[in-house]
């Protein structure tokens, strides 16, 4: 049977039309097909082929005509439909893995990838909330890397996100791991059963790397931003939402919450949410004395212990008591590479043997904020007071963070150091300078540093401070002393910087590399204590 369809005022180039006709002819049941502009010649041709069933008088050369001869009506209908569709069909641009496409706006980015599910926002703070709101309105989960977003904006964004059931990470969220992919400053860690909720910074990096090293892995690492739990007005909106999401996530077997001291109300809610999840959980609130363990809720004392408890819950151990027992038994046997107290004391004695009598003080020079805090809390208690720019006790706040005073632990990522400069994790030059400065100070007894690997960080953070370390050691030698340098490397074998090579570089320069920031801090504190004649 023969059938004709017309689309008025539709110009197509003849090559298209011929291709379309050829495709139609190859369809099963189609014996003849013409797809053409209605020129007098084509109309004559159609008439000659016996397609005279329709009056052609009203057609102009600007009209498209499709004529099909097929075995039955449904076949010809389908062929005609295919003809019109084939003329307007676009080849789908294959962009999978073909690099990064760019666009001028969120809207058009969504057109490029309609399945996009996460917006990562790192625009200047003044515009950040606006972009985040647009992303949430567009149905995207948000990681807001930008800082300098007001408290009011944060509350309003998080309220909006929760009402839409979307994840709102940040503002000031530097790290996240979603579906195994590192976002912004994050390490390449194994996938696994542990879901982390953290303020998001080096705390999240440290625990996720240690979990990776202990043989377990991360289901999700959700950053909340520093104010989420700390500020009562924000009320832990993102943290509580994330805990609920991880509770519902079948891939998450264990939950780990890391935070600076939360607002009391928020802490209670977070703990209640962890209990309600029905999953074993670990909580670590930096600088707060650990709470009392419950069978399925353990309070960690430090970041390393938090990672280890979570790993044990994720592998073999059923409750807190058993986990604690295992950790106690393991202490010193290095199954998890946790040098024992005795080992640390031995190392400290070795390192402090050649100190001059003038050398007395610990100098912690950090690029990571949470790592700074962890060391600060430990050292402040052990050494009877430590100066810092991160101190919560105003009496110990350095008036000039650019100069060390007695025992000092500084966060070089503080605004005061980064105005007009990149963050020291991106460019460790400022830390190298500070190492040199401490090297010239005859009272400095030990330099303690963090080396943070992962995406976002400098391509060779260890290498970037070697020259300064060598210089500091040489300067101490010249004064008749010795400069112990202690480091920890936050990273995994999968990180772009090559974890083993970073450790080897430091050790070749005489740096004692400890397996975690916690152990590094213990060693450095021990050295400082020996130097000060306390032991």
């Amino acid at each position, binding site marked *: 049977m023969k059938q004709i369809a017309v689309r008025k005022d539709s110009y197509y180039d003849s090559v298209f039309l011929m291709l379309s006709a050829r495709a139609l002819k190859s369809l099963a049941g189609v014996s003849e097909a013409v797809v053409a502009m209605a020129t007098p010649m084509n109309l004559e041709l159609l008439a000659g082929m016996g397609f005279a069933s329709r009056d052609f008088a009203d057609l102009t050369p600007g009209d498209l005509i499709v004529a099909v001869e097929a075995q039955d009506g449904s076949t010809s209908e389908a062929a005609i439909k295919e003809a019109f569709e084939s003329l307007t069909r676009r080849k789908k641009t294959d962009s999978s893995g073909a690099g*990064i496409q760019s666009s001028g706006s969120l809207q058009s980015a969504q057109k490029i990838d309609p399945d996009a599910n996460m917006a990562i926002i790192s625009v200047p703070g003044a515009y950040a909330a606006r972009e985040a709101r647009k992303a949430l309105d567009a149905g995207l989960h948000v990681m807001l890397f930008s800082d300098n977003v007001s408290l009011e904006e944060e509350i309003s964004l998080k309220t909006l996100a929760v009402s839409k059931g979307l994840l709102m990470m940040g503002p000031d969220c530097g790290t996240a791991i979603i579906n195994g992919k590192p976002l912004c400053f994050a390490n390449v860690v194994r996938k696994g059963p542990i879901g982390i909720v953290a303020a998001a910074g080096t705390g999240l990096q440290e625990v996720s790397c240690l979990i990776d090293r202990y043989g377990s892995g991360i289901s999700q690492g959700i950053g909340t931003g520093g104010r989420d739990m700390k500020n009562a007005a924000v009320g832990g909106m993102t943290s509580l939402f994330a805990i609920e*999401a991880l509770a519902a996530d079948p891939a998450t077997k264990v939950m780990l919450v890391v935070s600076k001291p939360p607002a009391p109300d928020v802490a209670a809610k977070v703990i209640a949410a962890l209990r309600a999840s029905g999953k074993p959980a670990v909580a670590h609130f930096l600088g707060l004395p650990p709470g009392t363990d419950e069978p399925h809720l353990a309070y960690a004392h430090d970041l390393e212990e938090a990672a280890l408890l979570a790993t044990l819950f994720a592998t073999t151990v059923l409750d807190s008591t058993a986990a604690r027992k295992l950790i106690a038994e393991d202490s010193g046997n290095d199954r998890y590479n946790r040098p024992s107290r005795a080992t640390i004391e031995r190392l400290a004695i070795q390192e402090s043997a050649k100190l001059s009598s003038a050398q007395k003080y610990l100098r912690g020079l950090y690029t990571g904020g949470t790592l700074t805090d962890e060391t600060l809390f430990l050292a402040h208690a052990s050494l009877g007071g430590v100066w810092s720019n991160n101190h919560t006790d105003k009496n110990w706040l350095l008036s000039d963070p650019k100069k060390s005073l007695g025992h000092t632990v500084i966060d070089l990522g503080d605004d005061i150091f980064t105005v007009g400069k990149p963050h020291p994790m991106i460019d460790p030059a400022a830390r190298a300078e500070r190492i040199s400065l401490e090297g010239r100070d005859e009272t400095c007894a030990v330099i303690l540093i963090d080396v943070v690997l992962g995406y976002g960080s400098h391509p060779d953070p260890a290498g970037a401070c070697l020259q300064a370390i060598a210089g500091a050691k040489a300067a101490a030698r010249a004064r008749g002393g010795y400069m112990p340098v202690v480091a920890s490397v936050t990273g995994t074998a999968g990180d772009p910087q090559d974890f083993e090579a970073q450790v080897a570089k430091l050790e070749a320069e005489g740096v004692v590399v400890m397996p975690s920031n916690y152990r590094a801090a213990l060693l450095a504190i021990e050295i400082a204590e020996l130097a000060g004649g306390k032991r």
Partner: protein
Amino acid sequence: MNVNAVEKLFTSELRAINIGLESFAKNLSAEGAKTVQVDWRPPAGGDLKTIAALDAIAAGIFGRDGKPLDAEAANAEAARRILAAKPTVVGIGTALDVVPGMARDLILHAGPPVAWKDMCGPLRGAIIGGLLYEGLASDAGEAETLAASGKIRFEPCHHHDAVGPMAGVMTASMPVWILENKGFGNRAYCTLNEGLGKVLRYGAYSAEVLQRLAWMRDELAPMLSAAIALRGPIDMKSLIAQVLQMGDEGHNRNRAGTSIVIRELAPHLVMLDWPREKIAKALAFLNGNDHFFLNLTMPSAKCTVDAAAGIEGSTIITTMARNGTEFGIKLSGLPGRWFTGPAGVVEGLYLPGYGPSDAARDIGDSVITETSGIGGFAMAAAPAIVKFVGGSPQDALNVTLRMYEICQTENDAYQIPALDFRGTPTAIDVRKVVETGILPAINTGIAHRNPGIGMVGAGLVKPPECAFRDAVVAFAKEYAHNT
């Protein structure tokens, strides 16, 4: 709390849109996560008042009666009308007879309104020429005196359903193309193109220029008019669709279009009761003027976008035009209002013997082509003129690709072969222009700054961003009641 959406995220592939630091996108991509980078710039260049206006519009707009309006729906309607337009050449007439409101003491010009004292050189020159052509003055000095006297009225072509290239001067006895939008019944008018070199639209008014205009009025127009009568109306949409596949973009390159028009008309011209040599002269004139087609694409574009004017709540730009002093735009939702800024300096290539110091500022209604989705927006269709945009076909593709960022839709008739026959970006949304800072890409000719010399080059021009920002602020004031 409903965490279903997060559960969905956890069980899907992570696909990110990265707004800001590009290294984050590179890292994710290296880890195998599909990432689209947004080349972010501060919205409205960081202008707080305009950002507030954008936010207010986003929060909700209302009609005069307080009824909530939907800008998206209004814009979709504007785009629908632009796509549904059927610009058709229906004939040639005399301006006084056919152009609404035309009068003997009225001279129409390109762009937004401008007073004689503020007019640029080429526009003044064209007006002098127009007065001489109409016999209202006998020499240039007399014409200038008359123009300054207040006895002659000056109004934009756009106020009379008309458009004019460059100076865009139209006087009462000039022959004009009559275009009808068969989809909506509205009409648009434009003078016939005079060719290149010393021509009225570039401000030239020598005897040679005036003689050519007289010949066009007395011989060319009557012949073309009779040929069209024989042939019947010409469907411009189909012609423009074809020329985009033949290397034209419909503004700065019109070689294919002019050729097609000659093909369409030649068989009918030769049948006319005119002396052979006169018909031959007419055909030779068309053949010698690559831009003859421009004066057809312009009124086609004009009657196309006019159909989308006056839609309550629409932020689609329905007019862009320049008078050599100012660049102006109009929005569909704010009919009758111009938003202007200083006319730009054209970045371009110059004819031998001329340079940037000779250039007049941006002038002409021809940017109506970009307003309708061709011209600079179809740059990717015209590889022959990629020299204007950086030299490589990729540069031309990039120009067109950027325009999708600021447009409501893609044309269903005008397609770009090199973009896999994707429709040209069509219906400019002023909100997107201001939000992204991506300004419409406008192709244009360059006039000599002094009257009487003519075309000195061609190139690309940047419209003034302030006109677009002012339009957004005014739109918010009109429609967003919580500003």
